């Protein structure tokens, strides 16, 4: 652990890339090469942008989960927030660009509120994070079922067309949104808050002793995660154009897998959002590759589970090697 706790003090984007994100980027590029060799159309603007569109919801959700995990917590409420925002988008379509903005505001309010509840339960009432966010997730899924009891409804046309569109013939809108989140994260990294998040995750007691308001940082982290999950639900609605009260369920395993292969340790205090987002992209690409190579879709879950466990074992062995070298 000495290695990972020393790292957060290095400033800026260099750390963000050096920590696991580099490895997963290389894996992604290799996988893309395989995909391109079996499917020649893989390099066209259309298939790249559709891949980015597919990735956006998971990448946003994984970014949110990463925030909480860096702070040494777990957040299962992602499934709940994505489901609730998705059904709200489908039940209450607001047309036009202003309508889209209004829907986004509603989604963010929902996500922020749920994040606030999570943060309050974990940071101030000191409940165990897995159990309490599990409870919140179940309540949210119930609420989603109350709003819309079966798949259906239509998302506003403006949202489902414009947000999955390609600007100037090469720039997918969803990619821009992901870049926006990355930009925000780089800003946060340079602020005191960024430092505090890593400090609380690495060692809460010493973070508290050095004057960090640990409870407030934790609360903010859960709220931030809730907002990102809401964005994920928003982008998912844009992509599917319909509502499903169980839309969020597959997100639980996929977000944690994305975070794990993106190089963020579940022990807290290390890793970053960018790695997780590339991890999410890798998972979605893997699904495409498996599909194009003809593996039965029944077994997709098996691959996802295996990748999740292997990523953690791989990372664990690297950390073990690094610590041995550091001490010896």
């Amino acid at each position: 652990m000495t290695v990972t706790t020393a790292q957060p003090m290095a400033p800026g984007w260099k750390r963000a890339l050096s920590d696991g994100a580099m490895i997963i980027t290389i894996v992604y590029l290799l996988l893309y090469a395989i995909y391109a060799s079996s499917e020649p159309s893989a390099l066209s603007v259309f298939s790249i942008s559709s891949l980015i569109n597919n990735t956006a919801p998971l990448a946003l959700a994984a970014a949110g989960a990463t925030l909480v995990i860096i702070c040494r917590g777990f957040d299962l409420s992602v499934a709940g927030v994505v489901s609730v925002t998705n059904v709200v988008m489908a039940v209450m379509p607001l047309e036009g660009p202003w309508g889209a903005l209004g829907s986004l505001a509603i989604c963010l309010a929902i996500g922020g509120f749920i994040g606030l509840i999570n943060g309050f339960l974990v940071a101030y009432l000191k409940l165990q994070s897995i159990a309490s966010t599990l409870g919140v997730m179940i309540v949210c899924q119930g609420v989603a079922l109350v709003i819309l009891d079966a798949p259906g409804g239509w998302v506003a046309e403006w949202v489902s067309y414009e947000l999955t569109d390609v600007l100037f013939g090469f720039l997918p809108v969803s990619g821009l949104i992901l870049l926006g989140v990355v930009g925000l994260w780089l800003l946060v990294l340079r602020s005191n808050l960024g430092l505090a998040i890593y400090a609380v995750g690495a060692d809460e007691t010493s973070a508290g002793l050095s004057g960090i308001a640990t409870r407030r940082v934790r609360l903010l982290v859960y709220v931030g995660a809730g907002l990102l999950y809401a964005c994920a639900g928003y982008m998912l609605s844009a992509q599917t154009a319909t509502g499903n009260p169980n839309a969020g369920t597959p997100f639980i395993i996929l977000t944690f897998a994305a975070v794990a292969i993106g190089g963020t340790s579940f022990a807290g205090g290390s890793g970053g959002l960018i790695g997780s987002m590339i991890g999410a992209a890798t998972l979605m690409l893997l699904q495409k590759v498996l599909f194009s190579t003809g593996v039965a879709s029944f077994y997709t879950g098996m691959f996802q589970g295996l990748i999740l466990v292997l990523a953690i074992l791989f990372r664990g062995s690297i950390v073990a090697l690094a610590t041995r070298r550091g001490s010896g």
Partner: protein
Amino acid sequence: MAQIDPTAQSLAAASDARSRGRLESETIAGIVIFLLCILLIVCARFISPALGGWSHAETTLLLASFLIVVAFGQGLVILVGGLDLSVASMITLGGVLSTTMVGSYDAGAWALPVVVVFCSLLGGVSGFSVAYLKVPPFIMTMAMGVIVYSACLGYTKGSPRGAAPELFIDLMKAEWLGIPVAIIFVLLFALAGWLVQKHTAFGRRLYAVGSNQEAAYVAGVHVRRVTLSAYVVSALCAGFTGMMLAGYANGATLRMGDSYLLPSIAAVVVGGSSILGGRGSFIGTVGGAILLTALSTIIQALGVPQGWRTVIEGMIILIALLMLREQLYQAITQLFSRQH
């Protein structure tokens, strides 16, 4: 264990006294939860005249029997400080294996050993990864759940066929002296579970590992082996529940385990066990399972839509966690005072 120095002896005596006090509060909590169950079933008469009688109590016990068996395994994993999210898939695996075997080989007697072997192997893999490779428990069991589910999906091509083994139909449907065999079975199971957890060396080791791993290690407990075995037992219990469910419904579905994952955790927490491990009693968990089942039968009778039922389920977990918070504070302060 032979050479205990005097300070350790007095410490042991102190912890003995503490555990006696704890046992008493646990017994009281257990009595309270069973009284709540009886009260709930009796009060159900006001909702509908069909409820509240002996037959309602019998149905509740019968339906709770599945949850009690899963919750025993879940409780052991929680006791050692973990969480088993793979129980839903293990239930499905138990059901699918037992029904498809009968369908294809007409050899129902083989279903039980096959399920036992598969489930203990898979539980062993989870337990090994958690105990020896230090994979976070909930990640490992979640991944195992997805893997097992997708294997069941692929194996059955999406729609399980076949019928349940005779043995399990008998277990779930037959009566003995006017009492359903399943209820007799689950009462014996509860008694055995309580004895194993409280009065065997294995059970005491689980408590030791759950309350303080390092202390348990120093005291000569094979911490990793004990942790591993908790996951094996949990997978076994879940697989057995799958067979019971298959016997009850005379068939398996791929989603048959889903409605037992969260209640199995809720039953343990509502029953007064600490979600952080090291504390709890199986009697409390049995009470929690019966209480949750009674609640759900009443909610079903009220005709509450699925969404609100789910909301109530989540709220129950949160409320139980909040009520245990006081104990949590005590545990934390104890932890700190022990360190200084």
